[in-house]
């Protein structure tokens, strides 16, 4: 140490932290959820059955213990979701005695409010049903499981993020967010999105799932599946995914790192059958979660930013 030394107590550096990173992230998540609900008229949690929304829901059960989670869940169903995930979603809602609102993209396509895209993917089509759901049910605080480490535009979004009458995010006009003071105030017609696990990484999420012994859809673990390769990703044959002439399916041991729309969510080859296997794999991986498995984020450098400006999650 130089003369201008920092006050570092030598003893303190060898004692295990009084609060681990997971403890701190959990306490922060609970604090954020309680703050948002404390000022909300009608909150809702966007629940897809994916691991991030499972963690947010679990934090909510802790935040309001010994009461039930005091808000509804909403899912925007693209119609291309994996059956296992929908089944898991419904089982979880049942177990916690909650109410689930489902907004179906298929309904919008059937009555021609939305048109199917040429490539068959429906992720981009979720925005309108999402905003309609928020308006119809008069939700004013919308919880989501987005994390800042997922994507560069998300790295700049606030924990509590104001959306205008069109659900749009204005990245250049965000409210400053200081200390642990969050500002969910908004005008009639506006709403706020709240992201309680903004500061978690993919690895934190998995370690927390392990510590809290959380149940997840089986897709997250290694299983044998008929897949075919497109743009370096393993896609699963699905009515929504037209295989091209030169594409052939084969059976591989795969798992999903994210469970979105089947038409654009890829699997990764993996032998990881348990939570600890997955943690070891995530800890050593060299490819980001979205880079590996989300075709929709590969479209352009600003694909996520553009979708968020239109009101996306």
């Amino acid at each position, binding site marked *: 140490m130089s003369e201008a030394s920092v006050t570092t107590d030598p003893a*303190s550096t060898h004692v295990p932290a*009084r609060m681990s990173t997971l403890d701190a992230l959990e306490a922060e998540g609970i604090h954020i959820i*309680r703050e948002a609900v404390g000022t909300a008229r009608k909150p809702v949690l966007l629940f897809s059955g994916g691991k991030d929304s499972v963690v947010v829901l679990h934090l909510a059960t802790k935040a309001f213990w010994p009461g039930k989670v005091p808000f509804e869940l909403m899912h925007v169903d693209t119609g291309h979701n994996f059956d296992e995930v929908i089944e898991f979603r419904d089982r979880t809602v049942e177990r916690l005695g909650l109410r689930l609102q489902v907004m179906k993209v298929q309904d919008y396509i059937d009555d021609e409010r939305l048109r199917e895209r040429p490539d068959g993917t429906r992720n981009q089509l979720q925005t309108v049903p999402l905003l309609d759901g928020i308006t119809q049910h008069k939700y004013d605080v919308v919880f989501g499981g987005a994390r800042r480490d997922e994507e560069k535009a998300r790295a700049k979004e606030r924990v509590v993020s104001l959306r205008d009458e069109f659900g749009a995010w204005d990245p250049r006009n965000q409210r400053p967010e200081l*200390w642990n003071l969050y500002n969910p105030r908004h*005008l009639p017609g506006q709403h706020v999105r709240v992201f309680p696990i903004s500061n978690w990484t993919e690895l934190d999420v998995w*370690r927390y799932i392990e510590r809290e012994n959380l149940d997840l859809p089986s897709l997250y673990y290694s299983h044998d599946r008929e897949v075919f390769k497109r743009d370096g990703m393993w896609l699963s044959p699905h009515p929504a995914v037209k295989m091209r002439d030169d594409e052939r399916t084969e059976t591989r041991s795969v798992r999903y790192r994210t469970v979105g729309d089947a038409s654009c969510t890829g699997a990764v080859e993996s032998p990881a059958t348990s939570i600890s296997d997955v943690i070891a794999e995530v800890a050593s991986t060299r490819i980001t979660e979205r880079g590996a498995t989300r075709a929709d984020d590969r479209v352009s*450098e600003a694909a996520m930013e553009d979708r968020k400006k239109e009101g996306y999650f």
Partner: protein
Amino acid sequence: MSTDIAYEAADSRVTSLLRFATAGSVDDGKSTLVGRLLHDTKSILADAYEAVERVSRDRGLEAPDLALLTDGLRAEREQGITIDVAYRYFSTPKRTFILADCPGHVQYTRNAVTGASTADALVVLIDARFGVVEQTKRHLAVAALLRVPHVIVAVNKIDLLDYAQGPFRHIERHVQSHAESLGLTNVISIPVSALEGDNVAVASTRTSWYEGPTVLDVLETVPSIDDGADLYGAAHKRGVKHPTAQDAADAETGWRFPVQLVLRPQDGAISPEYREYRGYGGQVAEGTVRVGDPVTVLPSGRTSTIAGIDTSTGALDEAFTGQSVALRLSDEIDIARGDLLAFGTDAPKAERQFHAHVAWLTDRPLRVRDRVLVQHGTAMVQAMVTSIDGILDISLPGGTLDNSIAKGHELLLNDIGVVSFQLAQPLAIEDYGRHRRTGAFCLIDPQDGNTLGAGTARAQVPGSGEDAYVSI
């Protein structure tokens, strides 16, 4: 120099979290330093790095521009500038880190104040060729105002000075004397080359005259709030120069607990045994709450005792700073969201007037008699500006914060001023110098709900007595 250290990810189940901020401009090499930290700790994943290489090549750059890792918005890439604070996440086997990367050019005050508000440590960049410049003083003033517990001054580009000791020692002395006049006690200067990697994550062999820690060494070892760093600070304020864990425990006095929610499940209980449960949900803002502690409720002044500390996984004997819990009291008294629970014999007073340093973060000016909402902990109270007593001007001679206040009667965007408020209801707002959580507040527009500014409260009467918030 070898930077080929096989870092594993930290085990977040046992290691602590450190939140730190970096302040400086592109010209100081801040983005390079951040990129170097991420790169040398093996925190940049392959596809992200390849994207940076590809875009850098497309722009005709010789080396990958690591700033591209953090500039996430279209406008930032188009203009080649960083607009907003970006949060980055990385870890070493010793710790996990949340880095708030604060750009220096646009919205300077807003970004620096935002990043510093949650930081356990602030890394300030200096270009070794130019030494302490006006921007350095501004960074140090923000660190002093926001009471960032540790400041690391990275004296960068020493490779351009052939790794000579003289210029570094000169800058180190200058930094030290300026920091002292601001009341900053934990400041360390480190000679680095972010470009070459010297003393960032790996000790340099080219600065044999320097025996101090690398930037990463300091970040890995300074106590964070989750290690009880606030207690070390309390011991430090009592004059203990290098507090031990025991000193820290001895220095601990009261605790503070802003009530977020009243937990009264009734028919919504998860099981019938909790039908009549009544607890108060919140996060411990400061100190350690213990079962049996006397409690004062603010602003009402009613008193009770802690009957229980609950979590969904079981009851606790004590809860410390940062923990989210539910408190039960031994008496049924009227408590609502916005109230502050405090240790009985060390409770602050709720007042209707206070003054503060205010960082003004919006386009329209703040003037005397303006009406705003004060967001303090979980409380939201109407307030009126009764006077604006000056504006911070770091170019004034004198060095201390109080000497750097120029006359002024309105605050413009990115100004920091001294402002007095009258409140519609009393608030237990405390001296930020001693209470980083209960001394902090935001100002909110009562009409559209936007966040207008951020403040750090000063002791009630400046310049008089022990509690005065003088020159920090």
